[in-house]
């Protein structure tokens, strides 16, 4: 039977790829839908509220209800809008966000990789830079003031933050010596050191730029409610609005997945080379069991009988799944997928966390952060990385490289801080106004 499957894969590579694409698409849609719910819930908990509670137990069916509502809503095209552009703009956004997932490796085996481009990293940068068209064109085609302002802001913002993000990625490239995402993870595996430990500054820059590029708090100026109602998608409604919504959350998942692949070792288990930590391999079934326990605990307290039985069923399902996963063959098979997903979810949680924590930047602050801090930092990081790699020579020791990189990163941070902060225009303006 196994041979048959291999035969099938060899005979129909396109069909297999198509099946993989459909699976990724479906899973991703589910993740995105529940990401919305998770955001609402987490925000609510952080603000001592309950969040959605009506549809299903703890609002678990809320995404389905929202989706249905948006699908049934009227699709309004404003008078004076550029109809064609107005219609395709959200589609561009979604397509650009989803396409990149074709090159993300979810695991080491070829079954978990849709395609391994040897210019994968460039492909990622290229396609994700297309998403901006959805925003600009949508804002412009609406023929309305708020959307136009929102899209102008977002164009400036995305172009500004693409530069530091790109340069942070080049740092990874230098360290891993490849443009293929699979090879980048493999390089982290063979060196035994995730890129985060070699490029802490690069990761920080990438993270900040990623938040800015996804238009998330604290960089959500293109859709700042208090200034621009809803920004570039003010005039959108119904299904097309849902597309924009999906694109935003998909790109969040995307940048998280990218950060994981580039900096957090992709599908690798933390400390994969340390034998003493091998018990971590049992985390997948254990975590499933924990989920089962928590769900069962809450199911007992649920007053609605139907919901109660549903939750019990979920808990039982999880427990059974944990049992399946605990089978030795399965447990090795699910390792990569589990760790990849866990890391991505951790970063996604961070996205929500920022939203609850940070106030929105003012526009000049946004530009200041991008141009006066991130770009010099990213440039310095690039130069320092190249110098350290040149100094260390081929096949340097792991610790030597780590400490050299750490020192270089610190040096860059300090030098740039001194140079940029030395006489920043804001300080000068304050001096001028106060006369001191």
């Amino acid at each position, binding site marked *: 039977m196994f041979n048959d499957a291999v035969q099938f894969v060899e005979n129909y590579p396109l069909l297999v790829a198509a099946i993989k694409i459909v699976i990724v698409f479906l899973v991703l849609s589910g993740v995105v839908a529940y990401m919305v719910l998770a955001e609402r819930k987490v925000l609510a908990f952080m603000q001592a509220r309950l969040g959605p509670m009506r549809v299903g137990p703890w609002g678990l069916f809320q995404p389905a209800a929202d989706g249905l509502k948006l699908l049934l809503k009227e699709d309004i095209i404003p008078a004076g809008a550029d109809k064609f552009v107005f219609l395709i703009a959200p589609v561009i956004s979604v397509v650009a966000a989803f396409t990149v997932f074709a090159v993300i490796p979810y695991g080491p085996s070829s079954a978990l990789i849709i395609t391994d481009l040897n210019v994968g990293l*460039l492909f990622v940068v290229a396609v994700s830079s297309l998403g*901006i068209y959805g925003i600009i064109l949508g804002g412009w085609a609406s023929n309305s003031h708020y959307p136009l302002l929102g899209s102008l802001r977002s*164009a400036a913002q995305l172009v500004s933050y693409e530069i530091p993000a790109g340069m942070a990625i080049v740092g990874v490239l230098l360290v891993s010596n490849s443009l293929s995402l699979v090879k980048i993870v493999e390089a982290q595996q063979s060196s035994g050191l995730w890129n985060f430990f070699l490029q802490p500054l690069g990761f920080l820059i990438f993270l900040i730029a990623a938040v800015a590029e996804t238009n998330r708090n604290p960089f959500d100026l293109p859709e700042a409610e208090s200034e621009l109602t809803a920004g570039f998608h003010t005039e959108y409604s119904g299904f097309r609005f849902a597309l924009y919504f999906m694109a935003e959350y998909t790109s969040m998942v995307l940048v998280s997945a990218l950060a994981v692949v580039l900096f957090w070792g992709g599908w690798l288990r933390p400390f994969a080379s340390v034998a003493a930590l091998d018990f971590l391999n049992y985390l997948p079934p254990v975590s499933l069991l924990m989920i089962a326990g928590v769900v069962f605990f809450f199911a007992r307290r649920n007053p609605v009988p139907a919901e109660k039985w549903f939750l019990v069923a979920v808990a039982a399902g999880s427990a059974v799944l944990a049992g399946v996963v605990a089978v030795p063959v399965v447990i090795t098979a699910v390792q990569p997928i589990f760790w990849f997903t866990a890391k991505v979810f951790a970063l996604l949680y961070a996205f929500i966390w920022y939203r609850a924590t940070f106030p929105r930047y003012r526009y000049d602050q946004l530009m200041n952060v991008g141009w006066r801090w991130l770009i010099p930092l990213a440039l310095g990081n690039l130069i320092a990385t190249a110098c350290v790699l040149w100094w260390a020579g081929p096949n340097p020791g792991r610790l030597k490289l780590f400490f050299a990189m750490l020192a270089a990163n610190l040096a860059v941070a300090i030098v740039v801080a001194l140079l940029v902060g030395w006489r920043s225009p804001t300080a000068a303006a304050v001096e001028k106004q106060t006369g001191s």
Partner: protein
Amino acid sequence: MLAQSVFLILAVVALSSGVMVITRRNPVHSVIWLIVTLFSVGGIFLLQYAQFLFAVQIILYVGGIMVLYLFVIMLIRVETVAKQAPYSRQWAIGLGAVLVLACELMYGVYKGVESFHLGTPSRPPVDMNNTEAVAGVLYNNYMLPVEIASLLLLVAMVGAVLMAKKRFE
């Protein structure tokens, strides 16, 4: 055979969208068609196994330059532009120049191999890292032009800042 038909499709799309670029009255539509053109040219690069060129084409032209085009166009009043005559008065001269260039190109193609020195088309294996090959040529054989080009870009930046600065202090 497959490659040839893909090339033909891409070429037709590139050319026809190029025509659309100059015939649209609305500059935003022109930009959209230009993006289509750039994409199809990128596809032709890909067909030649030049993945790096493809990626750079998309990143720089589609993802960077065209966004700035749109940015500028959105700041002008599209309605007034759309009302103006689409071609300047020199269109006849332009057409003449285009015809001359086209004739010349056809002549060159007609003369074919004997008129141009065509290097043997190299087919790197698909798994060969195209990017490395490009970097090797760029930083070995063409090191000097690359370095001068970096100065050129610096000057362009200094000049742009100088022209755009609000006032001298």
